[in-house]
């Protein structure tokens, strides 16, 4: 495919988004509140995207809305049988194609986690609502210019300029954006008279922007063996109680997460008409698994935190034989009101699983490597983790740096 990049001057960005809005419902990250305050959320508005701050929420709502009607129902008196009512079920009309401009690469990778779930597991039917929207959504990510202290995409195979799952990668360079198509759909949306051809200099500028961003990442971690480590810790109630002690069960981690996909199905009705809704749910809520009998398999918050982390790093990769169900966006850390840090839990879990205790000179957690330049890839031979067989391998997660 022709990988010829395009360039859009910053001043023309809104014109191009407006042009795209004729064909797509264009979503951009936008300030929800006043000028410089408030959360950055994805809104269906094709203008002035907020690109200076990482969106507070993930982009999942574009394809998997917070709440959506699955069907509408209507009961009418049955003309054939007195006293009986007939029942009519209608599936709402599908919405048109979507385009997201300005999501961080981790949000796009989040959809790659959701895809195998919603495509139908073990011969089950796929989720037609998700699949229709997903197949018609174009993703234009903006390479991150710097990592936040909460970012850990490089722990789980991502990078500030990862192209995985994208149709177009946009990189902010002098006075505008380099736009690189990655799929036929990406090529299509770059077919605009408003865009200029990118030159060698602009490509080079983008490359140094990616490298500069890589350097802002915090220490990396070797996630090899996380699946087994979490499995081994399943019955260690003390570990999970300690880790979950500060959790308020507010569910913000799941709601902002690009890979949390659990949902509830509820009915709302007025008289004989109503709607069946599918809405986000959270495994961090106590009622999530509560049965009508009163029995609850995950009664305490320790069991629920264990499930959330276990699902992302153990159950999901086991079931789908693929990547971890975490893209390292760090929102669950940044927005947690009690500063629960999933990185710390994982680091402890991995340390417990690795027989490094016999080396008292190690003061740092066994899994954390020094804040190195990811491009250099110098083996961290001084760390006990690198001495373990297979530790040098990246496991199932491939580096996209």
């Amino acid at each position: 495919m022709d990988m010829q990049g395009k360039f859009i001057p910053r001043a023309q960005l809104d014109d191009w988004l407006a042009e795209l809005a004729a064909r797509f419902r264009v979503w951009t990250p936008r300030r929800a509140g006043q000028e410089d305050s408030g959360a950055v959320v994805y809104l269906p508005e094709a203008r002035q995207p907020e690109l200076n701050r990482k969106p507070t929420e993930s982009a999942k709502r574009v394809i998997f809305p917070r709440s959506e009607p699955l069907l509408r129902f209507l009961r009418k008196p049955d003309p054939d049988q007195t006293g009986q009512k007939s029942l009519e079920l209608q599936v709402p009309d599908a919405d048109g194609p979507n385009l997201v401009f300005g999501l961080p690469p981790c949000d796009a990778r989040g959809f790659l986690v959701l895809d195998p779930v919603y495509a139908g597991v073990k011969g089950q039917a796929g989720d037609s609502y998700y699949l229709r929207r997903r197949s018609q959504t174009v993703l234009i990510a903006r390479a991150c210019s710097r990592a936040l202290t909460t970012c850990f995409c490089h722990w789980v195979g991502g990078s500030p300029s990862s192209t995985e799952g994208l149709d177009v990668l946009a990189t902010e360079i002098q006075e505008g954006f380099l736009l690189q198509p990655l799929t036929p759909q990406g090529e299509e949306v770059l077919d605009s008279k408003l865009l200029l051809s990118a030159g060698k200099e602009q490509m080079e500028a983008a490359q140094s922007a990616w490298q500069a961003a890589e350097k802002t990442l915090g220490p990396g971690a070797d996630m090899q063996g996380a699946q087994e480590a979490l499995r081994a810790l399943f019955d260690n109630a003390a570990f999970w109680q300690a880790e979950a002690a500060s959790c308020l069960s507010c569910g913000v981690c799941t709601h902002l997460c690009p890979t949390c996909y659990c949902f509830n199905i509820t009915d709302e009705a007025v008289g004989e008409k109503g709607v069946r809704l599918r809405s986000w749910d959270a495994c961090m809520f106590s009622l999530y698994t509560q049965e009508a009998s009163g029995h609850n398999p995950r009664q305490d918050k320790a069991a629920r935190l264990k499930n959330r982390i276990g699902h992302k790093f153990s159950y999901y990769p086991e079931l789908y034989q693929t990547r971890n169900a975490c893209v390292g966006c760090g929102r669950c850390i940044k927005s947690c009101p009690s500063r629960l840090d999933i990185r710390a839990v994982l680091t402890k879990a991995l340390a417990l699983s690795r027989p490094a205790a016999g080396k008292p000179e190690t003061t740092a957690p066994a899994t954390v490597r020094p804040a190195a330049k990811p491009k250099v890839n110098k083996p961290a031979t001084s760390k006990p983790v690198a001495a373990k067989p297979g530790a040098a391998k990246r496991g199932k997660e491939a580096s996209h740096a």
Partner: protein
Amino acid sequence: MPDTARRPVFEPSAPNPYLPQVATVLEVIQETHNIKSFRLRLDDEQAWAKFSFEPGQLGQLSLFGVGESTFVINSSPTRKDYLQFSVMRAGEVTSALHGLLPGDKIGLRAPLGNSFPYKELKGKNLVFIGGGIGMAPMRTLLLYMLDNRTDYGDITLLYGARSPQDFSYAEDREDWLKRKDMRTVLTIDSPAEGWEHRVGLIPNVLTELKPSPENTVAVTCGPPIMIRFTLQALEKLGFVPEQIITTLEKRMKCGIGICGRCNIGEKYVCVDGPVFTYAQLKSMVNEL
């Protein structure tokens, strides 16, 4: 080119897995003070003619405006006049279901989940151990086996309930007690006037009955506490985990392995279950 082209495919003709089929309630049976059985059939004649399921599979019953809940289909696929579901009144949906009358419309998504290994059980002796509403999933397999009686060896049923008033399936029970080709033992938790059967907790009565594990498979369902002690009793009698089958219940929503709430580790009760051997349960994380 990176692996970015892996966008999932949407087939416009693919079925909508959340759209229930409309069914009509044919009959409502008051089983106990808090259990009712509902017999229903699909309104669409073609869909009804094509409908098939295997013993142990689940259905989602919808009362539009109230919600959807999961129940085992407890009629047998060998008896195709209706589908039967037994509902214990416990929460919002079950309470609303108890208000259904013959002729009412209801939504059905079925069949869901796996089934009892009824083909692999051919030639085996069976011990059914059902407690309370846990008799419902036993019933579908038991009726199937009675309708294919020569395929199976000795059949023993141990059915327990709190009191004589807490037994369901009065008509079936009468038949099961009379039949010469199966042994039926009923038990209640504590003595009651006029009760002619056993008194005692299910695991204790099971131990007294002492079924031989030889060429035998035990199938059990009931409240968690009963299951726990029944499993212990079976192991003491010499049954190995591969010889014990149970069927689980969890809170479910989608029924197709997506929504996330019925997981036990990486297993989903709605697609990997509801039927599991005790050996399978032992290999899973301990979160029942």
